[in-house]
């Protein structure tokens, strides 16, 4: 009988601040599945079975510890009436914003997730993954935070103008977005997601100052996360989180993903006993890594964050770029298995 834990046991131990058999690894593979399946990204995301099969085969191949039914961020905006723009080797983008004028917010209503065909496909992928993985492998669902969704709804600059200049309209938009995000998150939980990754890059200290976060994104996160019926990981999508670590812990997040711009040891220390840490391999630089680079980066991260559990290794953006080589991903996996063992 093998002493090796299942991925679920490994992750749960780590999240309980205990040392599992080895450091858990999340390869956040989205569009990479299209490359592995030898189909275009557009075709890939049109067939829930294809995404599920790719997730399962990539998990076998790279021996990492999660399944990731997330398609792409712009999919959420499709439910609001936007169209996505596809590329050959990058995640689809949202097309024309749905809010042209701040006044549009006052008549905005949250769409019913169940009426969105794209989101229905994500739910179907999640159900297939759950059937295959059972309780052995965590399934990571994703929701854009109500606070970060407006970047796609109206454009980044316009949204910053709204936050700073129109607090009442901002509050209205948050109410509508929260309703949508909570429904979307809980439908994924019903379909089999074990944990919800709450993508909230606008809250990161890279984008807004901590004092503004405490008045805005923090309060939105606290209310939203309290209604999500699964553990939540807050993800800043490469943004900094250290200046607001204690606040993030107070939102109810069990995990936070830190940026490669921050010192992993420092973040781990700041999170001690409060949250587990996810991160922080550099996905962009990973494109030109050699296998030796990958091994060295993995060893460094383990040295900084593995002790005492509470750490899951991953890239810092929540998405492995299409251009990263298979050899580098395998090297990361092999290095975690080699150097990430707890004694």
């Amino acid at each position, binding site marked *: 009988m093998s002493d090796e834990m299942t991925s679920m046991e490994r992750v749960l131990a780590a999240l309980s601040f205990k040392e599992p058999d080895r450091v858990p690894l999340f390869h956040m593979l989205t569009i990479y599945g299209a490359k592995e399946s030898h189909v275009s990204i557009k075709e890939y995301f049109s067939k829930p079975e294809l995404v599920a099969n790719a997730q399962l085969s990539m998990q076998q191949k790279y021996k990492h510890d999660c399944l990731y039914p997330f398609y792409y961020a712009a999919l959420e905006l499709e439910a609001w009436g936007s169209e996505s723009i596809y590329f050959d080797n990058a995640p689809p983008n949202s097309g024309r914003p749905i809010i042209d004028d701040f006044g549009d917010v006052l008549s905005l209503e949250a769409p019913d997730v169940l009426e969105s065909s794209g989101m229905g496909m994500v739910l179907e992928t999640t159900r297939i993954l759950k059937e295959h993985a059972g309780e052995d492998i965590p399934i990571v669902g994703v929701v854009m935070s109500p606070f970060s969704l407006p970047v796609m709804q109206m454009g980044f600059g316009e949204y910053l103008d709204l936050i700073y200049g129109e607090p009442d309209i901002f509050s209205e938009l948050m109410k509508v977005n929260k309703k949508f995000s909570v429904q979307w998150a809980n439908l994924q939980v019903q379909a089999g997601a074990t944990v919800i990754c709450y993508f909230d890059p606008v809250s990161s*200290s*890279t984008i807004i100052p901590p004092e503004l976060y405490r008045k805005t994104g923090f309060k939105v996160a606290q209310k939203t996360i309290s209604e999500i019926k699964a553990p939540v990981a807050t993800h800043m999508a490469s943004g900094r989180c250290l200046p607001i670590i204690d606040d993030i812990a107070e939102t109810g997040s069990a995990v936070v993903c830190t940026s490669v711009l921050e010192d992993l040891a420092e973040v781990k220390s700041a999170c001690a006993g409060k949250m587990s840490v996810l991160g922080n391999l550099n996905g962009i630089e990973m494109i030109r890594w050699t296998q030796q680079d990958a091994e060295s980066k993995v060893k460094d991260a383990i040295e900084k964050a593995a002790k005492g559990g509470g750490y899951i290794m991953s890239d810092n953006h929540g998405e492995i770029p299409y251009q990263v080589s298979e050899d580098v991903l395998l090297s990361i996996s092999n290095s975690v298995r080699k150097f990430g063992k707890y004694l």
Partner: protein
Amino acid sequence: MVLYTTLSSQFKQYLLSLNKVAAKRLIQDEFTGDNAFQLIQQIMMPALENIGKEWEVGSIALSQEYMASNICEEIVNSILPPESPKRRDMPVLGVATLGDQHMLGKQIVASCLKASGFSIFDYGAIPVDELATNVVKDAIEVLLVSTLMLNFAYEVKSLRNCFNETGISTNIIVGGAPFLFDDELWKQVGADAMALDATEALSKVYELTGVVE
């Protein structure tokens, strides 16, 4: 000069607290009708540069740089209108995203350049071929490219190839998240320089054009 240093520090505080009224008043009080560039170079730009440096080390957020650049652009327009003949003496600059619909970085760079007294051509997200045609037509000396998405960062390589094939000597300065996370990428795609933030982009413009700040 000492006075301007103190004023610049005060101006920066007004920018960070989004006190547009006080920031504008500070500049208007110093404006004599023919010292716009002096006020830009000695009060406003040092304040913006300081904010940019603090963003690079993570002590200031992007939203603060965005709001500060916007306020400065508005103030500069009041003392040096866009149609001012004085702006025509500056190198001709363009900004673009090469198809990337994420415009925030470009907006901040454009505001910062305008706040420095440059006239700029904003090409938005037009694709490489169309951009190259416009760059020639408008006699652009330096093109500043901002991208958020990695695939559009790689488009700089297509742009450089297009420039090389058609004999366009325009310099390319790149910036944005992909270049921030991989400090070798700008060389890989054939750019002439990389800037971590808008004010560094401005310094690179001065370096590449030989214009004295």
